[in-house]
Structures are given as structure tokens and as C-alpha cells.
């Protein structure tokens, strides 16, 4: 840690380095890129993983918070903050040359805060359309429907990207580049398409059946959940997390609860910790099952799809009996869980474990070694470890590229430091590795549940918490491992009953940002198959 501080101070002598919840470095905008480059290219511990890039409006300044970590040691984290006082035309330097994941995130920040990034090759708005007036996440934005009326007129997509480039002499040049060539054969995969798992939109150019380029459009169900949170008290915010990655609803909510609990210093009873962990693992199994099923369906295996749904049904039944909700469990609250498990919970879960193990063997017989399936999975959509880190692809997909990135192992929360489980790693980085990783992780989740299910201690399930919670002033982070990868919550509080800014780090966004890279040069059919193997959920991207 000492070295890092020294190194930063050498590059940027007036940097403000504080020890808050995490090590926080505040920089002037012109220092940013140099410091980030130093961190990124550090030889001992390269900070090569940009966990999240959060746009901020602090009133008089606009800025960005970079949450960095290292693939070599995920426990190390640095928060880098930079800001500009120019609110009319804020400009910051892009880090998209250092971290590929910054590309889409900076476009999102531009759409929501109006900050443009110098040297970002593509500065179109992400999530919002080109016609949107104003920058909705700024504090002075007026959400008057007269400004941005609901339109029923369809407008064509303009495939021209503006950008700002810094020349060698240091001048800024505004230019625009065409995304596609003049005579490209463009086909829209989505937003209404059976295999984009929601309203994802890939503008794809084809050369025969070969994919030349994929341009990701998203935002068709952008709801501005982060903005909505700013007007809600902390307990009110909870249910919005379920609407992000609805397949990992319970885990997302767990993250937000933990973030608030840590900040407000609320203890969670042991029984609640057990329930949370078990429910998280059940949720993970159901998420992986659906991902497996949908992936098989994308490859044309409809029967496998139904098989996955059949097994998932058992978990949904357990959820149903626990709290009435099937998709969305609605159980986590600040301080514990809302209600206790039902009397037969343990019996049901213990019946499910051997059943699911048998079904995993059936999946192996039925699909995993099928000759056609292997032809559609092996050596398809190769994502190298370096790219996985640079694009921030975590979860089963990141671990399939050989990147050990399980939050449960590196930043254990709830009971994950008390249970024994294996982190599934594969080094092939192809669709098959991602596919097999999910099935193997189901087995590991069963193993975790098995260790906990008989040891649930008696007692309270929830600490008494005041209906209005005030977090102390500060910035709070919490990461969890969802079915899709690392899900992060960031809250900036000013000591009020509502948060000043909330940001959710979406694992699906990273997965989608890697699609253009790994699909290039593959067949159109494989684009669908690879997208299935990356397993993204659109509400998680659009937020």
C-alpha cells in the first residue's frame, strides 16, 4: 500500500490520498490518465480491473469515480476520483485505452451526466437516444415531460459516432466517424428477437454468414433506477435492486442490504446470515439453470430448455413457500430477513440437493457431450484472460477464461468464509468452458447449501431497525457474486435519509461489452450461441 501512495505522489504530487472505507485518491483531471496508466501498468500489482466507473454530480462540479482492483489480488482496491468545474461542456480524459470496459461506461456517463471523454473512440450516448434533451442524472435536470415528450414517431438509428481526439500537439479535435462502411450488410439482432434474452439490440454487419462487426445498442428498458433511488429512503430502495438482474434478485438485494448495514453499523443475526446465504445459493442455482437452459435453446436444443426449467421449478417452489414470491424473493431487508423460513424448508432443500445432482448427470449425458453441441461450443467465442479482465467480465464467464474472480472467495461476505467450496476455473475461455463452468458451479452451490442447511441456528431473523435510516456521510461500496458475476453497490451519502447518489455495478454490461470482440469473425449462428454463453440479463444493463 505504501508503494502505491508513493507512486501516485510521484506522478501527481498534489493528489489527495485518504483512507476512507477504501483507499481514495482525488486527482485533477489532467493527472488522471497518467496515474491510471501507472496503476494499470504497475509491475508488481497491476490495477488492471476497473470494477466500476461512476458518473457524479457534486453540485458545483461534475466528476467520475473509478473503482479499481487488481486481477492478481482482488482484495486490493483503490478509488480514484476526478472532477471538473465546467458544467456547460465538461471534458475529462478517457481511460478506455487502458480498460476496455470503460468504453461503454463512459458513453453511459455521457448520456446521463453530459461529461464527454477525450480520446474515447465512440462518444455516442449509451442507454439514451440521440434526441434526448438534457442529462437526467444531473441534480439540476428538470424531468418535465414537455422537454422530453413520449414520442410515438420512429426515428432511424444514425450510425455516426462523434468523438473528441487530442492531437500530438495537445489540441482537441472534434470529429465524427461512421460506425459501418458504406456497403455493409447490416442486420438488426434485436431489440425484438427471441435470443437476445430481452430487448438487447446488436447492430451486426455480415459478410455472408460471417459477423464482421457488432454494435451494441441498449437502453430500451432504461428506467433510471439509480436516479429513482435518490428520492427514496434506504428501505424503499431495496425492491428496486430486484428489478435489475431479476434472476439474481435476492443476491442483488443482499448486496444493497449489506452496504447499508455496514455503513449504518447494523448487526445481522446469525440465523439471518444462514438464511441469506442459503437463499443466495438457491438463487444462484436457479440463475445458472436458466442460463444453461436458455443457452441450450439458443443452440436449438429446445428439450434441454424445458429440462432446465423443470429443475428450476423446484427452487421456485421453495421460494414460493418461503415468501410467496417466485421470481423475486423479497426477503432481505436492512438488518436481516423479513420473515423466517417455513417449517419444512430444510426438508425441501435436502430433498432438492440429491435430485439436482442426479439431473446434473442427466444434463451431461443429454447435452454436454453431444457431438453437435460440442461443435457449437468448443473453440467458439474465445475470450482471453487479459480481455476478460480488461472488459471486466466476471462470474462463470470470467472464470472460464482462467481469471479467478469469485467475490465470495476474495471478499467474503455473509457466511462464505465459513463454508468450503471450490472456485471453478477453466482456462479455455470458449463457450464450452463457460457452459461447463455453470454446471459445475451448480454442484458447488449444492455443496455449500449442504454444509449450512443443518446448522441454521435458532434466534431472531432481523435486528430492529428504525424505519428511517440515516447513513453517515461518506462513500460506501459492497460487492457480491451473483449468478452473472460481480455485482457492486455504491452509495454516496450526505447524512440524509435518502442517498445522494447510488450506482449499481452491472456484471451483464461487462459481458455485453465483450460480445463485439469475441463474436468478430464468427458465424451468425455463433453470435447467438456466444451471447447465450455470456449469459446477460438486459434490465441489469439498462438499470
Amino acid at each position, binding site marked *: 500500500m505504501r508503494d502505491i501512495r508513493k507512486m501516485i505522489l510521484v506522478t501527481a504530487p498534489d493528489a489527495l490520498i485518504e483512507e476512507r472505507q477504501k483507499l481514495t485518491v482525488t486527482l485533477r483531471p489532467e493527472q488522471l490518465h497518467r496515474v491510471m496508466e501507472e496503476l494499470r501498468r504497475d509491475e508488481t500489482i497491476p490495477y488492471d480491473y476497473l470494477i466500476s466507473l461512476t458518473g457524479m454530480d457534486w453540485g458545483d462540479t461534475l466528476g467520475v469515480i473509478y473503482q479499481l482492483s487488481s486481477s492478481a489480488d482482488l482484495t486490493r482496491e483503490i478509488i480514484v476520483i476526478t472532477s471538473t468545474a465546467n458544467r456547460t461542456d465538461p471534458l475529462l480524459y478517457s481511460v478506455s485505452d487502458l480498460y476496455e470496459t470503460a468504453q461503454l461506461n463512459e458513453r453511459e456517463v455521457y448520456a446521463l451526466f453530459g461529461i464527454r471523454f477525450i480520446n474515447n473512440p465512440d462518444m455516442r450516448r449509451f442507454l439514451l437516444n440521440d434526441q434526448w434533451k438534457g442529462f437526467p442524472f444531473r441534480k439540476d435536470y428538470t424531468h418535465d415531460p414537455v422537454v422530453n415528450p413520449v414520442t410515438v414517431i420512429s426515428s432511424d438509428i444514425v450510425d455516426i459516432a462523434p468523438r473528441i481526439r487530442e492531437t500530438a500537439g495537445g489540441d482537441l479535435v472534434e470529429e465524427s466517424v461512421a460506425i459501418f462502411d458504406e456497403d455493409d*450488410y447490416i*442486420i438488426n439482432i434485436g431489440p425484438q*428477437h*427471441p*435470443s437476445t434474452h430481452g430487448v438487447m439490440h446488436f447492430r451486426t454487419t*455480415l459478410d455472408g*454468414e460471417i459477423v464482421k462487426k457488432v454494435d451494441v445498442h441498449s437502453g430500451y428498458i432504461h428506467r433510471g433506477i439509480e436516479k429513482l433511488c435518490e428520492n427514496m429512503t434506504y428501505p424503499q430502495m431495496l425492491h428496486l435492486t430486484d428489478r435489475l438482474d431479476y434472476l439474481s434478485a435476492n443476491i442483488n438485494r443482499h448486496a444493497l442490504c449489506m452496504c447499508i448495514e455496514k455503513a449504518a453499523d447494523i448487526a445481522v443475526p446469525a440465523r439471518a446470515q444462514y438464511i441469506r446465504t442459503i437463499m443466495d445459493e438457491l438463487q444462484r442455482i436457479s440463475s445458472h439453470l436458466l442460463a444453461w437452459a436458455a443457452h*441450450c*435453446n*439458443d*443452440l*436449438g*436444443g*429446445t*428439450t*434441454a430448455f*424445458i*429440462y432446465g426449467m*423443470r429443475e428450476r421449478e423446484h427452487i421456485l417452489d421453495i421460494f414460493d413457500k418461503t415468501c410467496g414470491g417466485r421470481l423475486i424473493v423479497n426477503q432481505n431487508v436492512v438488518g436481516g430477513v423479513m420473515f423466517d423460513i417455513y417449517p419444512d424448508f430444510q426438508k425441501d432443500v435436502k430433498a432438492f440437493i440429491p435430485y439436482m445432482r442426479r439431473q446434473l448427470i442427466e444434463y451431461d449425458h*443429454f*447435452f454436454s457431450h*453431444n457431438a*453437435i*453441441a460440442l*461443435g*457449437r461450443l468448443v473453440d467458439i467465442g474465445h475470450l482471453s484472460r487479459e480481455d476478460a479482465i480488461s472488459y471486466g467480465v466476471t462470474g462463470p464467464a470470467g472464470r472460464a477464461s482462467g481469471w479467478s474472480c469469485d467475490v465470495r472467495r476474495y471478499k467474503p461476505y455473509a457466511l462464505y468464509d465459513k463454508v468450503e467450496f471450490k472456485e471453478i476455473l477453466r482456462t479455455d475461455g470458449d463457450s464450452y468452458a463457460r457452459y461447463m463452468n455453470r454446471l459445475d458451479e451448480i454442484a458447488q452451490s449444492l455443496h455449500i447449501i449442504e454444509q449450512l442447511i443443518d446448522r441454521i441456528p435458532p434466534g431472531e431473523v432481523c435486528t430492529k431497525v428504525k424505519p428511517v435510516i440515516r447513513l453517515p456521510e461518506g462513500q460506501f461500496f459492497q460487492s457480491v457474486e451473483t449468478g452473472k458475476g460481480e455485482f457492486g453497490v455504491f452509495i454516496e451519502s450526505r447524512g440524509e435519509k435518502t442517498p445522494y447518489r447510488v450506482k449499481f455495478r452491472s456484471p451483464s454490461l461487462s459481458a455485453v461489452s465483450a460480445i463485439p470482440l469475441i463474436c468478430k469473425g464468427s*458465424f*451468425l*449462428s*455463433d453470435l*447467438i450461441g456466444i451471447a447465450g454463453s455470456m449469459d446477460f440479463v438486459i434490465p441489469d444493463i439498462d438499470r
Partner: protein
Amino acid sequence: MLIYSQPLEVTQILDTVDQFLRTHLSPGMVSLSKGILTGLLLLVAYAVIALALIYIERKVAAFFQARLGPNRLGKYGVFQSLADMIKILIKEIIPINKADQLLFFAASFFVIIASLLAFGAIPFGMDLHAIDFNLGVFYLLAVSSLGVIGILLAGWSSNNKYSMIGAMRSGAQFISYELSAGFSLMTIVVLSGTLQFSEIIEGQRYCWNLFNGHLPAVVAFVIYLISGHAETNRGPFDLPEAESELTAGYHTEYSGLQFGFFYLSEYLNMFIVAAVATTMFLGGWMPVQIKGWEAFNQVMWVIPSWAWFIGKVGVMIFLSLWVRWSFPRLRIDLLLNLEWKYLLPINLVNLLVMVIIVLSGFTLTELFPAFFGR
């Protein structure tokens, strides 16, 4: 050859109709009215078989997928496909802007007429054969390959990129697998020494072609099943309409009855492939008979020939459904690799082997005439 009693055959009914027409009409009118009646019968059979197949497919798929399938309309949902047919008949046909109207309209007819023409050449049972060409196999191959024109036209005229890609895939796939299907049938033609369906069936009285030609025939059978399956555009070869990639491929833009035509012809093509496989390899409508076992043969003949035909075709169709609901979809390059790098070379060698076997008398009928000879 002994004449067996055939109580359930429809030959008598056909004779009665024939007599009735002859007594009441002039000879010219007799052929005309027979032609019309046969055509009508074929059309009705076409529709009924398609509906039955749709129902069967849904039920079989449901059982493969641990579901129930249609179960509301009638006992076990047997009327479901009838209701679906009525629905599709009364549905609006939505005109497509910027589509090539004429070709768009014509495409569905190409597809259904091709399958109808092929359907007409199938021997359904003893005397249940509309026309017994001496070039039957050749005719069947010729008309069944017309269908691809309809698919290409549909894809082209829809003015839809998904449809276009589907149609291009279909063209590549159909033309490739047509070769394999043709060659594997040719292998059997070499074995039977005729292109006429009735003679091919008669030749399999005591020994199916599948066994008669032993090794090359089995290879040809497997190749025909694969390529026939591929020609029907059904999973795992359903790339032209790959629903998870191209929504519905070449028929994305079709609605109402026009879509119904594509749908019907898909099921009927499955039936035709199964029927041809039955006729060429499994003895067609001919009951299982063993030389010299007259009592056994009599029992077999009590089961009418059309029932044998339906039974054998049913097994073939079940195979097809089984494959469809078990395998994921191939990719276009894997598909073409399979055809051009594996099936076609094997097929050419296989044809040669069959010629050698037939010329040197190594078929079962010639090796053991006492058991299998006619």
C-alpha cells in the same frame, strides 16, 4: 405364389367404385371422374395426414420434454390441430409493404405443390397408388426438389434480411443434401434394378432391401435418413428457419393461410421422406413374410397393406421426431462439411460397392435363394 385372403384391403371397395362408374358413365368420363376422385382423395389425405402429424409431433415433443402437450380440446387434445387449422384458415393474410407481391404470393404455392406432387407418387398400400410410373423414383426426386424454389422465392421476395439469410441457407442445404438423398436412392435402384415403386416393393417380398443389400444398403439407409431429414428443414437441420437466430427464417413475413402452406408442407415433407424410406428400404406396404411359412404369411396378410405402410412410416416419423427433439441445431459450415466431406464421398463409394455386390451376386436373395429368393 399363393393368394392369401386379405379381408381388410380396400381393393374391393375400389373395384366396386370402378364397376359403378363403368355402368353409369362413358369410358372417357370414367377416367376423368376417377382422376378427379383420386385427386380429391389425395388432397383430403394430405390435409388429414398433416393435421395428424402436427398433433403427433406436439404430443411426442411434449413427452420428450416432460410436458403434457395439448390436452384441452377433446380427449387428450385430439381436436387441437383441427382447431388450429380453422384458426389459420380464418386468419387475415397481412400484405407486406415493399415485398415483391407476385413472387411473395407464388412462393407458398411452389412449396405446397412440390410436396403435393411428391405425395401423389407414394404407394400407400396394395392398389392404393395414384400413378405407378416406370420412372417413379426419378419423378419423386424431381418434384420434391421443386420446393426449394418456393423457399428461395419466399426469402427473396419478403424483403427481409432474416428471410433472405434463411433462404440462402436453405438453398445451400437443400441442394447439398439432394445429392446425398439422390445417391442413396440410386444405390437401392441399382439393387432393385428398377425405378418403378410397385416393382421395388414386389422385389422386397421376402427380404427388405435394407437386408438384401446388407452393408451398402444399411449405409445408404442411414445416409438417406440424415439427408432426408435435412431436406425437410427440421431440427437439427432447421437452419433455414432457425427460430433462435432468424426468428422464423424464410417464412417470417407470412401470415394466415400462406404461412399455413409452409407449415403443412413441412409436415408432409417429413411424411414423404418417411414414406420413401419405407418404400425403398423397408418393403413399403408389403407385409412381413417368410418363405414357406404359409400360415404365418396368412396371418401377416390379414393386417392390411395400408396398415403395414402406416406402421412402418410411423416408426420412421418417430425416429425423425426423436432426433429433432434431442439434438441442438447444426451450424451452416458444420452442415455443409457433413455433406460434402463425409456423406457424399461415402455415398459415391457406397454406390460403387453396391454395383459390385449386385454384379457379383452377393445380395442375400442371390446368396440364399431358398430363404429370400422371389
